[in-house]
């Protein structure tokens, strides 16, 4: 130990004791929050597309129901014809997803 180090040994120990406190850390979702913030410009567009597709879907259901009822089909058949493809779509959509999400995990 040099003389300079020896002279500062006591203040060094005091600083170590006095500043020994829990280390703060970032919240686990911090990186994801930042990622969401840097992509705000695409969010209105995504919302617009979702609204457009939902509206189109609802109008289609109503029109199909009216047309199928007009052809004399029963409610059960109409419901099956509309809900069947929708259920199939709901099951298979995750399999179609090829877009790799942005991840921040190791």
């Amino acid at each position, binding site marked *: 130990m040099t003389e300079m180090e020896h002279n500062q040994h006591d*203040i060094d120990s005091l600083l170590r004791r006095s*500043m020994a*406190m829990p280390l703060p850390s*970032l919240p686990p979702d911090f990186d994801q*929050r930042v*990622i969401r913030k840097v992509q705000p410009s695409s969010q209105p567009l995504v919302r617009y597309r979702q609204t457009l597709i939902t509206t189109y879907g609802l109008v289609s259901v109503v029109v199909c129901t009216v047309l199928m009822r007009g052809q004399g089909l029963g409610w059960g058949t109409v419901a099956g014809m509309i809900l069947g493809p929708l259920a199939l779509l709901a099951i298979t959509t995750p399999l179609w997803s090829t877009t790799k999400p942005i991840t921040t995990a190791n």
Partner: protein
Amino acid sequence: MAVATAESDAQLVARAQTGDQQAFADLLRRHSDRIFRLAVSILGREFVPEAEDITQEVFLKVHHALESFRGEAEFSSWIYRITFNQAVNLKQRVRFRTPHADETILHQLMSEDPGPDRQLETAQRDRALAECIQTLPEVYQSALRLYYWLGEGVGEVAELLGIPENTAKSYLHRSRQLLKAMLKERGFSCD
């Protein structure tokens, strides 16, 4: 056997500059903790939420300015510099605001001293020490907190503050010297 090599910052920056969000996410994951530690070392332990805000602001700023980054300096040095400036600016603004947690109270929570007299004495000395630290130049304060509180080595302190290692050593030495003298002046010993 295939060995996965981590991409360098320069490679990730080049990809991020072309709009690759995954590359930006990788840079964020790689540097967010160190940016946060640097910010908290400048602001002090009473302002941890503000340090988190600074870390977020730095990455938003980096994302915005990434296109203009030409790679003349290391990416890490660039963001450490931005962090330092942002945190020092914020510190000027929050200087007179009541902190979220007083340093002495925090210390008392950690203290295991049995006697109330000894505890009071320790608390008074720690309060005096904390006050003395506040009077040091920003860069000295930051070096002390990085080294003694956040457990960084001298090399890391130098890297985060953008100074040579010998300068970091000299800052720490000078800080200890000043603190010792200030405590003595206030009637406290360092034992």
